[in-house]
């Protein structure tokens, strides 16, 4: 087997490949991320960034208390974020647990949102602690129910204890289940990987194994999508493109709640991976509360004042 011609799927080749990656200087990466956070995005560029960010949101509900009704409401919101303004774009996807995939897909189709994909979290989300057979079946179920995107978690225990090949093979196997039917997003859970060196290694590992997207976090662990982590992941997809001419997407998730946070993410993308990545096919933001703040800022841009939160729908 050949993975982009960079590794052959053996433990030794994977280990050697990841070992030769340059280190990340944490102080320097944090300084760069902090500098980019000072970019001042105003007027027309802000309006553009808000609409772009809306189209990149993976509108998410991942609660034990989720109900079919809540998921249907989420789908309606995803398709028409502002029912009073049809110029607002629809979001990038709806992201739910496995058992809600069918409900979401049916409701989206019922309201005419055929092109809006459903993403399912998979492989014993969020901990990743289950047997391989369960993880494979979990993924297959979601795809059968209509998921076009699979957000899988990696086995952080295996990664941290150095069993890299296990993590790799797991991603390869899930990617096989996805086949041509679903895009694979690999969640690194960077809050548990802790170091930026680990983030870089895990990013390459996931990309080599066939991920379409690398995603920061489950949203269940803090810290989640911090700017230095997203910076390092964007550098990874940029450099991976140089090596392979394949563009891998990036999805920060967790902790991005305000328009300001979202715009900072877009600046990171623009000045790190480049404008090619400023597209929902290559950059998504996993969020729930963010969408309403984007809508309120959008109204403010057009109306000139901040409306009461009562003017945006809560679900």
């Amino acid at each position, binding site marked *: 087997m050949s993975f982009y011609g960079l590794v052959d799927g053996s433990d030794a080749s994977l280990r050697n490949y990841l070992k030769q990656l340059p280190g990340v*200087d944490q102080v*320097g*990466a944090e300084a760069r991320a902090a500098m980019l956070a*000072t*970019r001042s995005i*105003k007027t027309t*560029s*802000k309006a553009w*960034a808000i609409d772009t960010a809306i189209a990149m949101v993976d509108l998410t509900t991942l609660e034990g208390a989720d109900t079919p009704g809540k998921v249907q409401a989420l789908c309606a919101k995803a398709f028409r974020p502002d029912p009073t303004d049809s110029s607002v774009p629809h979001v990038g996807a709806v992201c739910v647990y496995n058992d809600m995939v069918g409900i979401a897909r049916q409701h989206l189709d019922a309201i005419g949102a055929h092109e809006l994909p459903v993403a399912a979290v998979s492989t014993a989300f969020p901990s990743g602690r289950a047997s391989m057979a369960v993880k494979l079946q979990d993924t297959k179920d979601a795809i059968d129910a209509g998921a076009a995107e699979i957000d899988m978690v990696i086995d952080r225990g295996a990664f941290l204890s150095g069993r890299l090949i296990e993590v790799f093979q797991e991603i390869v196997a899930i990617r096989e289940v996805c086949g041509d039917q679903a895009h694979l997003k690999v969640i690194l859970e960077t809050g548990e990987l802790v170091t930026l060196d680990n983030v870089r290694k895990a990013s390459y590992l996931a990309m080599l194994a066939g991920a379409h997207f690398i995603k920061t976090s489950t949203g269940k662990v803090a810290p989640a999508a911090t700017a230095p982590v997203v910076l390092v992941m964007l550098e990874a997809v940029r450099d991976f493109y140089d090596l392979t001419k394949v563009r891998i997407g990036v999805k920060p998730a967790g902790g991005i709640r305000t328009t300001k946070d979202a715009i900072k993410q877009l600046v990171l993308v*623009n000045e790190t991976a480049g404008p090619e990545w400023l597209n929902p096919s290559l950059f998504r933001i996993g969020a729930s509360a963010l969408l309403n703040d984007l809508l309120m800022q959008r109204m403010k841009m057009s109306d000139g004042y901040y409306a009461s939160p009562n003017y945006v729908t809560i679900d």
Partner: protein
Amino acid sequence: MNFEYAAAPESRSVVKIDPEYGHFINGKWVNGSSHFNSINPATEEVLSRIALGTAADVDAAVKAARNAFDKSWSKLSGRERGKYLFRIARIMQERAREFAVLETLDNGKPIRESRDVDVPLSAAHFFYHAGWADKLEYAGVDTTTAPHGVVGQIIPWNFPLLMLAWKVAPALATGNTVVLKPAETTSLTALLFAQVCQQAGLPDGVVNIVTGDGSTGSAIVSHPGIDKIAFTGSTEVGKLIARAVAPTNKSLTLELGGKGANIVFGDAAIDETVEGIVNGIFFNQGHVCCAGSRLILQENIADEVLEKLKRRMEKIRVGDPLDKNTDLGAINSGEQLAKIHELTAAGDAEGAGRWSPNCALPDKGFWFAPTIFTGVTQSHRIAREEIFGPVLSVLTFRTPAEAIEKANNTPFGLSAGIWSEKGSNILWASQQLRAGVIWANTFNKFDPASPFGGYKESGWGREGGRHGLSAYLKGSAK
């Protein structure tokens, strides 16, 4: 999709610039006899008319400083002096935006840098030295704790307010009084600082500011009533000052030019190194005496680093210095721009490869695109002479010993950078480098507690930290 950042200019309504300024002598504004224009280098707009200080103006300032030293300042306890310095530092923080906008208008540097670096660091220098004022006996310096008396200070145009702070704060903390001359092209923040001195109730004559050109500076250097000269500027002028001061009793500290080597080893963290290279040479348009203007790359990663550096340079935003998103502002003067053109032309003529990203430069004002020269050797003028602009000379090395040899093969010795993930490598290299400041895995980081100064033709003495205090205290007695 293209993410164009709309203009985000900082408002200039916060500053009030008088059409004409005099000198600040003995706590009062004194009219000048003649004036010259001070312009905004980004637009060539005339900002104000600055007084050209004469020998008589300097004499009046020195008399005021002497009088203040004898009658008030030397009689105060360290604790009282410290209170004034704390007050000045706080006022600078309160008026930070005013200082930042004025500095950017007058100097051409991006507001992001004046706001985030120059002004906060200037205030930090006053805070730091305020703390020392009543603790000089415990500073561990090999001098007495007695001040020189009247200090003449001549500062450059690259960090107008920050260099003022580097000079004035330690001088006052140690009990000296000051006659300061800002650079010809950048007097405005020094004149605003004079207002801060008034606002802080600083006794008259403790700080005197005489504006002017080289002739004014020369009058300060040759004035017999001055006990110590502190100069920051070019090595050329520094040598003239050293000659002038040699036959006198004056003490002297000089902070002069540099041609900093930024050495990148093969095991460096590449992305952060590229950021460090950019910060090392393009910070403040390269108008930095300690700039990392010679990039010395290990050959096995040279291509990769250069490719990433070029890609990063394409993201450098050149333009209106008041725009909050600008990374590279205007060259400070037409004279400096001509010097940069002359040296880069020499680089072309000597066969080095010039590269700049595509970037539109404004029509008016003084501008130079960020530039790198590859294939540079030690014998090239652009490897030896200080360009003092956004121009990087790139050399390569094979063995660590060769890197050190190249880095040290210069008459300068102000700064150096080392990029490596290997601690032992960093420690080894830092012991071999003949430079006053050595950064590891970072560049252009400054702190009031850290002494700054050069080896060889980069200067005499240190500024900042405990070492910097001793330069403002009388010779060794302990």
